């Protein structure tokens, strides 16, 4: 067997083109923004502040915000004063409110607060930017946790198959073949339709149905290492099998598995979005990109922003994940890198698709 060149993570990464680093940076920004949504979102994502005046507002709309008691708000494009009354004007409405009911007037009697819908507002007057950020948070959390679960299950099954003897190997791999041949959306629809809705069940369902391709990869990698000199040496020195697996095998299969898991995250974001789009994943009013897209469909003609921003978020995240995973894999994996073809373009197959 020919020696494979040792490809370290750092030397491999230095071969990654700039455009991919940009995609990586974009991913980091989306992840950080999403995960810190409760702190960076300008408003409560579920707050319907004065839907009568604030609904379906286009991006970059700023409105005067009058705070009343009990945390209620009134919004207006223009506020005029008439004696002790304030007149709230929008393009199609005119409302009055007594000035002493408004809590946020300064000493000159002017309204101090504005509410800015940077990405517009939806049909209930909720802020799209805040919902986008919380949607990103939910999508990423679900995808990350279920990918971790899938990776754990996949490595466990792969290790069992590779180390558990011929029969176990055959049975497990036939099961994996069978599961891979199943149109998953049917089972996912079935499970999500019957199991109580919530984030944890969703993570469990996605994790437990998404481990097969990782187990195949893990099995292959482990089998390739099984008879390598350092493993034989460890065995000769009397190390137990589990100890050899953890100390010597696992660190060596880490890189391909980490990349496969990264690509899995992109896949799972798509699955979650598809399920939420069908109304089976994250349930409204909780925001997720998928259910924001579904809700925005009815307003496509009049309010394109409701649907477009979550759709963009979804596409950018998945493209960036696929692109980065794809390039890093090719940069690190000698099978694709040293092929006779060319050095610069990705050689491996594109990652799995969840739903066409």
């Amino acid at each position, binding site marked *: 067997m020919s020696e494979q060149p040792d490809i370290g993570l750092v030397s491999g990464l230095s071969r990654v083109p700039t455009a991919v680093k940009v995609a990586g940076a974009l991913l980091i920004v989306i992840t950080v923004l999403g995960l810190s949504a409760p702190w960076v979102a300008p408003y409560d994502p579920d707050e319907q502040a004065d839907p009568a005046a604030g609904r379906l507002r286009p991006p970059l709309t700023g409105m005067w915000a009058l705070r009343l008691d009990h945390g209620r708000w009134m919004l207006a494009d223009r506020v005029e004063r008439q004696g002790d009354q304030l007149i709230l004007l929008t393009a199609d409405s005119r409302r009055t409110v007594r000035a002493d009911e408004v809590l946020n007037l300064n000493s000159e009697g002017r309204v101090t607060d504005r509410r800015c819908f940077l990405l517009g507002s939806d049909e209930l007057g909720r802020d799209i930017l805040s919902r986008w950020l919380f949607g990103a948070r939910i999508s990423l959390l679900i995808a990350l946790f279920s990918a971790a679960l899938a990776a754990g299950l996949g490595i466990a099954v792969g290790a069992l198959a590779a180390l558990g003897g011929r029969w176990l190997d055959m049975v497990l791999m036939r099961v994996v073949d069978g599961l891979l041949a199943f*149109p998953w959306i049917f089972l996912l629809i*079935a*499970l999500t339709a019957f199991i109580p809705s919530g984030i944890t069940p969703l993570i469990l369902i996605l994790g437990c149905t998404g481990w097969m391709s990782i187990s195949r990869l893990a099995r292959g990698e482990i089998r390739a290492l099984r008879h390598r000199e350092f493993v034989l040496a460890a065995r000769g020195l009397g190390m137990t099998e589990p100890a050899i697996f953890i100390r010597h095998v696992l660190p060596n299969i880490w890189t391909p598995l980490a990349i496969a898991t990264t690509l899995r995250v992109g896949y799972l974001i798509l699955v979650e979005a598809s399920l939420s789009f*069908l109304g089976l994943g994250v349930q409204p009013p909780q925001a997720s990109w998928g259910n924001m897209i579904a809700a925005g469909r009815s307003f496509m003609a009049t309010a394109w922003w409701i649907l477009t921003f979550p*759709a963009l978020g979804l596409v950018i995240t*998945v*493209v960036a994940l696929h692109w980065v995973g794809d390039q890093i894999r090719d940069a690190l994996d000698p099978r694709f890198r040293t092929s006779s*073809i060319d050095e610069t*373009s990705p050689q491996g197959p594109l990652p799995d698709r969840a739903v*066409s």
Partner: protein
Amino acid sequence: MLAYALQRLAASIVLIFLVLTSTFFLLHLAPGDPVHMLDLVRVSAETRTHMLELYGLDKPIHEQYVRWLKAAVTGDWGISFTNNQSAWDLLMGRAPATFLLVISAVVIEHILGLWIGLTAALHRDSAFDVHSRWISLLLHSLPSFVLAIFAIEIFAARLGLFPSQHMTSDGFHAMTRWQQTLDLLHHLALPALTLGVVRCGAVARFVRNGMLDILSQDYVRTARALGVSERRILWLHALPNCLGPLVQRLGSSLPILLSGVVILEIIFAWPGLGITVYDALLERDYPVVLVSTAFSAFLVVAGNLMADLLHGWIDPRVREAHE
């Protein structure tokens, strides 16, 4: 070859059996029952018991399973709970629509993918090659429902070029044969193109890399040295070697294709299998869910088997490896 095919067939039958059995138990063990789902919660306890008895749902689950299995083997898949039709007839009524959509999408996918992949491989590192690479990845990462929504908005709502819902227009039955065909194609255009376009990126990448690999092989160089024309090399020597893996790839992507069809059928109100299964699952229509699962598992297995046999037929090396 025959032994290999039989072996595959046996494994496939076991696989379908396992998938069906697990679906059966998943469905029946999930909380709630069809009578409950039928919005009949307010019926009297007596009627409820009667209905459960009628459908055999009062028996212990293993007994139900044996009964269902015995009937299924003889081709009796039961009566739909929701519209009193035989589940099999219901399925067969819906299957042609799905076949039409899937086959059109696969054709579009491969025409686009082969064109992009071949052009990119033949003009390596040209502007076309460079741009087709990232476009392939973009298309591959695009969720089909997002593309579908934008396609409907632009081509149906704004431009009015194509209908966005259903498979036929209102007066379909009064039309002539020729008009019916045109009407059907008109309705088919958007869903088939959407599905074909999101899937063509992966084919383009596959063909490009496969072709580059083949074109760098010794036998191609030899053919070139012997003065064989580039066109002849491409069509007679390189392309056939690329088609085998492509066919196999199509076989193994069938489950994903079927999953994608479900979502597109729902968006385009396309009266096929996907929308049937979706509704049946939400209504707990067990017979319809089970027969659809069986049918889709059969399609996947049959598709894979056909892809393998076709691969063997295209590429003698594969055939010999199994003899």
